[in-house]
């Protein structure tokens, strides 16, 4: 995140964070979670699951803001996110 100066309300703002969990053997490889993740956290893996589909893999875990959209759009109940301790914005590298 880049600002031209440190915002005045950095003390109050926290960015929610999430940890994505993938139940690989339920996945049918439709790719909706990868296409519609607003932060681009996921990516298709080259690995196969038990059914022969390519499940998604978390490439950039730090970007997840726990919006639950992957959980909502997954037709197969194969992905969900849980809340991780929020990060105060003051700890982010602001330059």
């Amino acid at each position, binding site marked *: 995140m880049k600002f031209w100066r440190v915002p005045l309300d950095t003390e109050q703002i926290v960015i929610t964070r999430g*940890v*994505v*969990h*993938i*139940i*690989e*053997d*339920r996945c*049918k*490889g*439709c*790719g*909706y979670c990868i*296409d*519609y993740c607003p932060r681009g956290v996921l990516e298709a893996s080259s690995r196969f*699951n038990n*059914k022969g*589909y390519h*499940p998604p*893999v*978390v490439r950039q*875990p730090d970007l997840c803001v726990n919006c639950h*959209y992957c*959980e*909502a*759009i*997954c*037709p*197969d*109940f*194969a992905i*969900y996110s849980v809340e991780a301790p929020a990060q105060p914005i003051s700890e982010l590298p602001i330059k």
Partner: protein
Amino acid sequence: MNGSTSSQKHPLDGLLRTDRIPHIWCPGCGIGTVFSSSLIAIRSTGAEPMKTAVVSGIGCTGRGAGYVNLDSYHTTHGRAIPFATGMKLANPELSVVVFSGDGDLFAIGGNHFIHAARRNMDLTVICVNNLNYGMTGGQAAATTPYLAKTSTTPLGNPEAPFNLPLLAYACGATYIARWTMLHTRDLTQSITEALTRTGFSFIEVLAPCPTGYGRKNKLKASDLLKVYQEKAIVKNGANPAETILDLEQGITLGKFVEYDRPTFAQNYKAVTSD
């Protein structure tokens, strides 16, 4: 952290018959997402699980009743609404959700739909519209767009499709909304509203059928979602007669109608109490 272990538990597992998951819906099918939104809505109303029942007819969407860990009823083809009507009248405390497809609700079950809407039965009807008969091999249905290719209309569909929100409005439904499976947040909110209100609520949800409709029209599942994203026109309160569903011109989405009038149960009570 990101692996697959047996201890992983999806937040909706409590409402699912997990021994039946993975379900039969094809990769890329939107029914699973609509089903998931319905479960999130049922959970968010905070109603007791014993007081909610899900009724389905026949078809791909009709399999929904088999996956929900609530009282559920997988009925004969087209007859989900009559079964649901009976359940609601016998046990007025139940919140009855009809979860079925366009072929089941509007082709073979069309008459049941129009009469339940006319009576204002207190039901929540969620219609997953995939624009064809998916389970039987992608034949043309009552909702297939004009000139769309299906396995029974290889030269293009010569028929005009139903405008489902207008049909529901003309029949007397008191809550009408249309969303796509991509608009999961709005869809979940609409289902929650429909569950908590009294009267006949109808929600049409567009969902891709990559195997039936998509293959014949050269549309992959992700292409159909892109169409939903690009062509969606959200217009809450729009006149149902002016809503369009055209994959090229646009798809009107939103909550179109909400008003109150006495339900069948209330009217029946008023007539018989003397």
